[in-house]
């Protein structure tokens, strides 16, 4: 692996880690506020799983860059985060959080199946392991999408409004970035755009069965992972506050 490939791979791992971490944090905001106790626990579990996946990707990145995981998470400014905007949007209502997690879960399953064949072995092994958990996440969020989509007039309307909002944001997951070419040459990771067709097929089928109309706007608000909304700034201010206040604390 030459320096170019190593840099590209570290960057890819940062994309993976930041998407999972920020989504995990947003989901964790439901802890103690879920619609019923059982769902509060279920969704908190999912948040915790995603947090674990973020840690896995960060550790793989640390092997390449030497940057400490806690430093990367708690002492990095918003401008240096590389998550898509989809995951940093405020958690909204229950329909919003369920649908966002669903759209992300389908993307992850499609993506992880490909990453599991990566020529970079640590990445392939981690992807295969994480994929098992994502199967369950998808089962849970897909079930909610169906029930809310086909539920009451209000739940259906909330789902459709949310889908109209989230659909363009979700498209950012499939934007090819400069790193992807080098990684593709080495067989380390497939390009995001190559995942779009399967994702679109799976989501369109399921959402349509839930009586939801697929939006016609496929234009992501941004194609640059360095580009963030103000929501990320406030999220990180809260998430990083304790670590920054007590930088030498142990836990």
């Amino acid at each position: 692996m030459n320096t170019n490939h190593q840099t590209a791979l570290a960057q890819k791992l940062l994309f993976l880690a930041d998407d999972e971490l920020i989504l995990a944090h947003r989901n964790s905001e439901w802890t103690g506020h879920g619609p019923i106790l059982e769902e509060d626990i279920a969704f908190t579990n999912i948040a915790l799983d995603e947090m674990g996946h973020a840690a896995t990707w960060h550790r793989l990145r640390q092997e390449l860059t030497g940057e400490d995981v806690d430093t990367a998470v708690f002492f990095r400014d918003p401008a240096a985060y590389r998550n898509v905007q989809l995951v940093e949007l405020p958690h909204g209502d229950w329909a919003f959080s369920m649908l966002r997690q669903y759209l992300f879960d389908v993307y992850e399953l499609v993506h992880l199946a490909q990453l599991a064949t990566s020529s970079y072995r640590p990445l392939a092994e981690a992807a295969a392991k994480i994929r098992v958990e994502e199967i369950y996440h998808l089962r849970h969020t897909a079930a909610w999408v169906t029930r809310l989509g086909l539920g009451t007039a209000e739940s259906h309307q909330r789902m459709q409004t949310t889908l109209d909002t989230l659909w363009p944001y979700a498209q950012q997951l499939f934007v090819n970035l400069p790193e992807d070419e080098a990684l593709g040459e080495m067989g380390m990771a497939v390009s995001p755009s190559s995942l779009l067709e399967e994702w679109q097929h799976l989501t369109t089928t399921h959402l349509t069965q839930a009586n939801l109309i697929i939006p016609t706007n496929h234009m992501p608000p941004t194609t640059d992972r360095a580009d963030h909304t103000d929501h990320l700034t406030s999220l990180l201010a809260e998430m990083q506050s304790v670590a920054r206040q007590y930088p030498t604390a142990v836990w």
Partner: protein
Amino acid sequence: MDTQWPRYEVFKQDRPGEPHESVGTVHAVDAEMALQNGRDLFARRPKCHSLWVARADAITSKTAEQLAADDAWQADIDLEAPTETYLVFQKQTERRGMTFTTHVGEVEASSPAHALQQAITTFPAEQVFVWWVCPATAVTRSEEADTLPMFAPAKDKLFRLPNQYRTVFTMQKIKRGKDVIE
């Protein structure tokens, strides 16, 4: 008006070949969600191979005292009526905190009372504190293919174990008056 979702009893099997045991209840809108909620509440940390859920109102429960008090519960048994399969569960001990009843087998019966009558003769035991019978059609079961994604990931999660946290050690240090923030 009761605004709670229906209650489902959750039955957990730890390993293949072992009986399913009732471990608690969940609220859920339907059986699929009950299965998922059961997984998240009762199978994410302890060992699990398979889960069943049954709507609580489909289960007929009788204590040994209730059955012994009089024969009234057997009054309406119609032996000519068509039968269906019932699952039979027994609470066999008062010593176990984590489970309530254990699945012991099936009977063919025309009603819950008939199923209880059949259960008592089919599954005699030295001590049964509580009997449960439930039509097999009211039970939803996880499938063999679910075992890996639903129950396997927890095995590798060391953070679920209390000894993964330095809290106890850190507290001891604090109590001894040591400054833990280095």
